[in-house]
Every structure is written in C-alpha cells, then in structure tokens.
C-alpha cells in the first residue's frame, strides 16, 4: 500500500479528515496535520501514515512549532495527573448510604405511590451498541417511598411546631424601625423551582435594592443555564449553554416582591400584614410576619430577611420557599454583575421559552 492511496482513506474508528498525500502542501494540509498532531497518542497509525506526518513536520516550520507547543501543553497538563485524589470518608459514607437505602425493603403504608409516574434523571446518551431492556423499578420506588415517609414526618413535625408557636404567639405591638432601609444591600437568594413539566431547576438571584438591578441565573444541569440581567427597563437574557443572547426575553423574570420593604411597611401599617411573634428558624431568632398573601416573612433581629414560609396548607405545614436568603453589602458585589454587555462569542437570537 502506498502513502498516496492510504491517505485518501479515513482511519478506521478515527473519523478525522483523511491524511493528505505525501509531499502535498498548502494551508489545508497544515490544518489536517495539526489536527492529527493534537490527538496523536489516541490514533493507531500505520508506519506509512506516521511517515507522512513526520515528513510534513520536518518540512514545515509552523507545524514543527505547533508540535512543540502541543507537547508542552500535554506535559504540563499530564503533570496534574500525577496527583490522584480520593473522596473523603464522608463522601464514601453518603454514597454507600444512598446505595443501601435503595436496597431497603419497601414501606407498606405508602406503597400506593408506586403507581406514580417517574421522572428519573436523564442519563447520558452513550453512543455504543445499546441493550434495550426493561428493568424493574422497585428499588427507585422504595427509595421514593422512604423519602416520602421522611418528608411526611418532617412536615408533621413542622406543622406541630408551627401550631404550637401560633397558639403562643403574642400579638403585641410590633413595628419596623422608622429609619429601616435595605438600600446599600444586594438581596441574594437561591431556591429550587419546578417548571411546567415537573422538572426541578435552581434559581440564583442578586437584586440590588437601591437600583432595582437584577442578575438571575436559572439552571438545570445539562439542560438549561440562562442568565437574565435587568438594569432599569432593559433586560438581557443569555443562554450560557448555547451562547445565545436576547433583549427582553419573555418568561424569564422572577418575582421577589415578597422582599419589598416599602410594601411590607405599608401592609403592617394597614394591618394587612400581621406580626405573629418571635420564633427560631435554623438556629437563629426571627420575627414572623404573615403577609396579606398568606406567606410568612421571617426577619432576623436586625430586621433583615431570612426566608419566607409558604402559605400554610390545610395541614398547617409551612415550608421555607428559599434555600438561602441573605443581604450582602452592595460594595461586595462586583459591578460586572449588572453588565448588559453581550459576552464575546455570543450571538443574538431567541432564548427558549421561560420555565
């Protein structure tokens, strides 16, 4: 087999462009040779193919330089590989606990949930010959059953605590300090939300109180990562996964009006909001204020928001709506958070519909 005829055939299992013929020159030849050089350790080359590449690199100063550069990169990165790390004991324990929980026997009391539809995490698509098979899903149901039992017990406990504290709650006079302001702070919060398809996504929001500027990121690992920056009336949406930007995209605005201090003052003055009393939330003392929409706003002893409890249901249970709520001094948040400059590499287009 000659170098000429092998060069026209793509390498089996290596869908790179075919190697150029020996002695062929031109920019396209360099381009192909460099591609081969970059992944050379992964290729199974015949001696003839190796000879074509070596001959080209000997004759082409630019490709020789590229070859050196690639070697430098590979050696440097490979040096990271010398240090192998292992997960800590707590990770081992947590993973083994999840595996053990899957294998635990089902809980009969709520076995009825086994008929509920499942939405397991989408596994990676693996491009190999697939084995289509139906597997029993009992283990996952068992896991869900146990999680559901735990959730019910927790809700019951919360409900009990909530009722008990409500009974004792003083309705004594409560007023926010007259000079209270959250200006100079950025309201930061994170929360898990559920979209129209029942999929959970994470929201991370920064809201500069004094200006109303917002920076919100909504993510669903592997499926969605959208950042919305709102400055004044202008809003820029950025699809971080597809590098698409859009002005004023629809359906991507989050509502955090529950943290509007002026509205809170107004509701308290007009008695539409009711002070429920002092409570302890996640180890810290908080003031509980029931708003006109039924939600309960929690403020710390410095009158800063801590969380919001969802409207109590018939069972009396009230659950926190946010994972984290924090006021951060505005000077600690970089101005770049409010930048509505379109990032380099992004093109204008249309964002997918909001969740």
């Amino acid at each position, binding site marked *: 087999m000659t170098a000429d005829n092998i060069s026209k055939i793509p390498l089996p299992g*290596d869908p*790179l462009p075919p190697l150029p013929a020996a002695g062929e020159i031109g920019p396209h030849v360099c381009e192909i040779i460099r*591609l081969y*050089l*970059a*992944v*050379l*350790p*992964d290729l*199974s*080359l015949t001696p003839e193919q*190796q000879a074509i590449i*070596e001959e080209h*690199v000997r004759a082409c100063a630019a490709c020789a330089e590229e*070859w050196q*550069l*690639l070697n430098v*990169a*590979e050696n*440097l*990165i*490979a*040096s*990271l*590989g*010398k240090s*192998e790390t*292992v*997960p*800590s004991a707590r*990770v*081992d324990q947590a*993973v*083994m606990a*999840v*595996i*053990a929980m*899957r294998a635990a026997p089902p809980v009969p009391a709520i076995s009825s949930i086994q008929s509920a539809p499942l939405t*397991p*995490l*989408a*596994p*990676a*698509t*693996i*491009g*190999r010959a697939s*084995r*289509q098979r139906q597997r029993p899903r009992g*283990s*996952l149901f068992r896991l869900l059953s146990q999680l559901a039992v735990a959730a019910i017990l927790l809700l019951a406990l919360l409900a009990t605590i909530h009722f008990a504290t409500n009974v004792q709650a003083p309705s004594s006079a409560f007023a926010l300090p007259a000079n209270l302001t959250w200006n100079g702070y950025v309201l930061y919060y994170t929360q898990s939300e559920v979209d129209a398809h029942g999929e959970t996504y994470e929201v991370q929001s920064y809201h500069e109180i004094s200006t109303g500027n917002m920076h919100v*990121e909504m993510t669903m*690992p*592997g499926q969605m*990562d959208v*950042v919305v920056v709102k400055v004044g009336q202008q809003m820029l949406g950025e699809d*971080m996964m597809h590098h698409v930007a859009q002005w004023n995209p629809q359906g991507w605005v989050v509502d955090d009006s529950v943290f509007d201090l002026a509205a809170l003052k107004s509701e308290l003055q007009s008695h539409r909001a009711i002070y429920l009393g002092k409570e302890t939330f996640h180890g810290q003392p908080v003031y509980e204020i029931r708003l006109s929409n039924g939600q309960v706003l929690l403020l710390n002893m410095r009158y800063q928001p801590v969380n919001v409890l969802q409207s109590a249901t018939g069972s009396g249970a009230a659950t926190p709506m946010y994972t984290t709520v924090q006021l951060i001094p505005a000077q*600690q*948040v*970089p101005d770049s958070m409010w930048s509505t400059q379109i990032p380099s590499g992004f093109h204008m287009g249309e964002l997918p519909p909001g969740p």
Partner: protein
Amino acid sequence: MASVATRRAYASMTAEKSMDFQGSATGTEQQWKGNSDHLPAARGNDAEALSALYEQFRRPIHSYIYRLLGNVDDADDVTQEVFVRACLAWDGLYERDNLSAWLYRIATNLCVDLMRRRKRISWRPLASHSDGPIEGVQSEDNSALLSDSGGIPEIAEREHIRLALSNMPEEYAVALVLNAAQGIPYQEVAVITGISPNAAATRISRAKRMFVEEYQRLNRDGKRGNAR
C-alpha cells in the same frame, strides 16, 4: 521533532495513571473503556453493581473533578452528587455498555455549571476590602504563587497550571483535562461531551494552544510583577 513512537510511549504513561478504571494501560480507546461487563449489573444485583461502580470510579471521577475545580471540598461535594445522581438514575438507565462515559458526563455537567458560576461571581471577602481570593473561588491573586515568585516550586507550578486552566472557556478546559490528564482518547471525549469525534479533536487541539498561551501569559505577568 520527537518521533511518533515517543508520543505513543507517552500516551501509555497517561493511560497508566488511570489504571484502576482502564483495566490495562496501553493507552488506546479499547483499553480505556470502563469495564462495565465486570460489574455485577449483569447479574442483576443493583446494590452490588452500584457498590462496584462506586469502588471502580470513585478515584478517577474525584481526581477529574479536582483537576478541573482545584479545590478538594468542591471535588468531594461534586463527586458525591455524581454518584447520588447515578444511583437515582440507575433504574432508568438502559444502556450500560459505557458507564465510565456516563459518569464522566454527569461529572462534566456539574463541574461546568460550577465553573461558570465561579467566573461570574468573584466575591471580595467580608473581613477586608482587598481583592484576595476566598475559598473555592479562583482569583488572579493565585499568580502570587507562580513558580517564579519564590513559592514552593511544585505547588506553585500546579497552581499556575490550574490558574491557566481556570482562565480558559470551560468546554476547552474539560476537553483538555479529559484527554491529557485523565488519558481519555478523543473519541471518548466526544461521547462524554456530546460532540462528534472530529469536533472533539479540534477542541482538544485548540484547547492545547489556548492553554499554552494562557500559561505563557501568566508567566510573563508573574515575571513583570516580580520585577516591579
């Protein structure tokens, strides 16, 4: 020019570093692939299969995440998340021929999310208003550790490499670490990142160039900083 044979010997070395999940260490795709056939999955015992899966992949996945994120605590958190997700998705997983690619894909998605978040948010510490780094957040201040700055050379060099990696676009850093540090061939990098093999090769090629440019830039900046 170093011969192609020299390069192939090097490839074997990189593969060897990941011996525990490659089976053998000749550096080819065939040897790299996860040995899912040896998992008890084939025998239908899920708990046993998942335990074996964890035992087989805990080190390479943790190392991969650590190499990308450069922080042990983050690597622990993300590793835990990877395997918990794997456990939850296990029953719905019909294709089990390439579990390593599946796990790497979950890990990659989680790492990329975290890296993007880090890049957008660089907090200044509460205690002072200096520009120093806080735990888990890459910062330009790491350049103080560069090898030419008089720090411990090996640690400084590793920090230098990590800083160069963290300054690259995430998808390029991922491709580079998978290929050059984990010893995963470009064809498998394509499977993990969901692109064509040709695109994966192109991405690795560009990533190597980008990395060296960034590394050299940091070197120059470090020297300039020392000269001042």
